[in-house]
């Protein structure tokens, strides 16, 4: 597969390195900064083109017309958007991936036809959120059909402590799938299982019901 990476910063560099480890890929990085180009060439070989990855002339030389995939990972959302849009519209690149720095841009990128958007900011925030005690509900995984797999730790003062699962008023289409005791032992929930302090509850819920589920499992009496 011929993959063109726009932006030779840290993300572009490590991405190229990973892709080059698989022999079936041909990789080219486009980078404007001469120093960065030199460093990439020294470490990864002759796989870098100096130029503007939004400029049609550079894109022509880079061979966008035969690229299977374009991945734009500069630090500027506007440059990533334009690279991918030009790749799609002018060069018919089948798959475009854009890095997004401002999470709010995800919607517009998708509406404008960028195939995949990757937000490091969102990934980092999600990871930090897991460590923040104030964010009690941790989103684990987005499942199909608007469902999410989430986890929440039951606080000591929560109303649900001591209740059996069958007595909980969970929001529509929410399901408790696993309980983890504070000592780390997993328990398969039955209708009779009672909820203890500091239990970690793993549940499936609809995205729109996340807040309601969090309220049921964590709010105090």
């Amino acid at each position, binding site marked *: 597969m011929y993959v063109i990476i726009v932006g030779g910063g840290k993300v572009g560099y490590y991405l190229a390195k990973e892709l080059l480890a698989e022999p079936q890929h041909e990789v080219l990085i486009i980078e404007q900064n001469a120093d960065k180009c030199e460093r990439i060439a020294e470490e990864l070989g002759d796989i870098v083109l100096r130029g503007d990855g939004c400029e049609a002339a550079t894109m022509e030389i880079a061979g966008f017309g035969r690229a299977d995939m374009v991945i734009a990972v500069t630090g500027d959302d506007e440059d990533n958007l*334009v690279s991918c849009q030009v790749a799609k519209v002018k060069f018919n690149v089948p798959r475009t991936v854009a890095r997004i720095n*401002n999470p*709010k841009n995800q919607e517009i990128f998708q509406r404008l036809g960028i195939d995949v958007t990757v937000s490091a900011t969102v990934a980092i925030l999600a990871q930090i959120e897991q460590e923040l005690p104030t964010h009690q509900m941790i989103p684990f995984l987005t499942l199909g059909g608007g469902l999410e797999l989430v986890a929440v730790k039951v606080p000591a003062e929560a109303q649900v402590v001591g209740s059996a699962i069958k007595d909980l008023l969970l929001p529509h289409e929410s399901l408790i799938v696993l309980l983890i005791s504070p000592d780390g032992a997993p328990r398969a929930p039955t209708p009779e299982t009672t909820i203890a302090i500091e239990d970690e509850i793993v549940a499936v819920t609809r995205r729109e019901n996340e807040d309601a589920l969090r309220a049921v499992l964590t709010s105090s009496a």
Partner: protein
Amino acid sequence: MRVVIMGCGRVGSSLAARLSTEGHDVTVLDVRADAFRRLPSNFNGKKHIGNGIDQDVLARIGVGDADAFIAVTQGDNRNVLATQVAKHIFGVPRTLCRIYDPIREEMYRELGLETISPTVMGANVLHGLLSEAPPAGEEA
């Protein structure tokens, strides 16, 4: 008409001044406060400091209620992103976008944006002038 102008450079500031004199409700946005010095002292529109490629900034300055959005920063790509956000996310009825690069300008025009390329326009005007007879007294 409510008009939001992104970029208070030479073009943005003189357009803002003109529209404001004509009685339009003008909001100017620029990342640098000192850009507003280009506006005339009697400018009675609104001035906001902020980056127009940030949707939160556009929401805050009321782009959702604007009748027109004009992107005239120095960055083609910034103009392209902001204009598409104004058009597709905020539903601004009229959006205008300056793109220096003729190739990108043509492409975005084909994609349905109202764009202008000062590069093409300037070249056309100069080309036109050159093919006319020079003004009297300036013969080579």
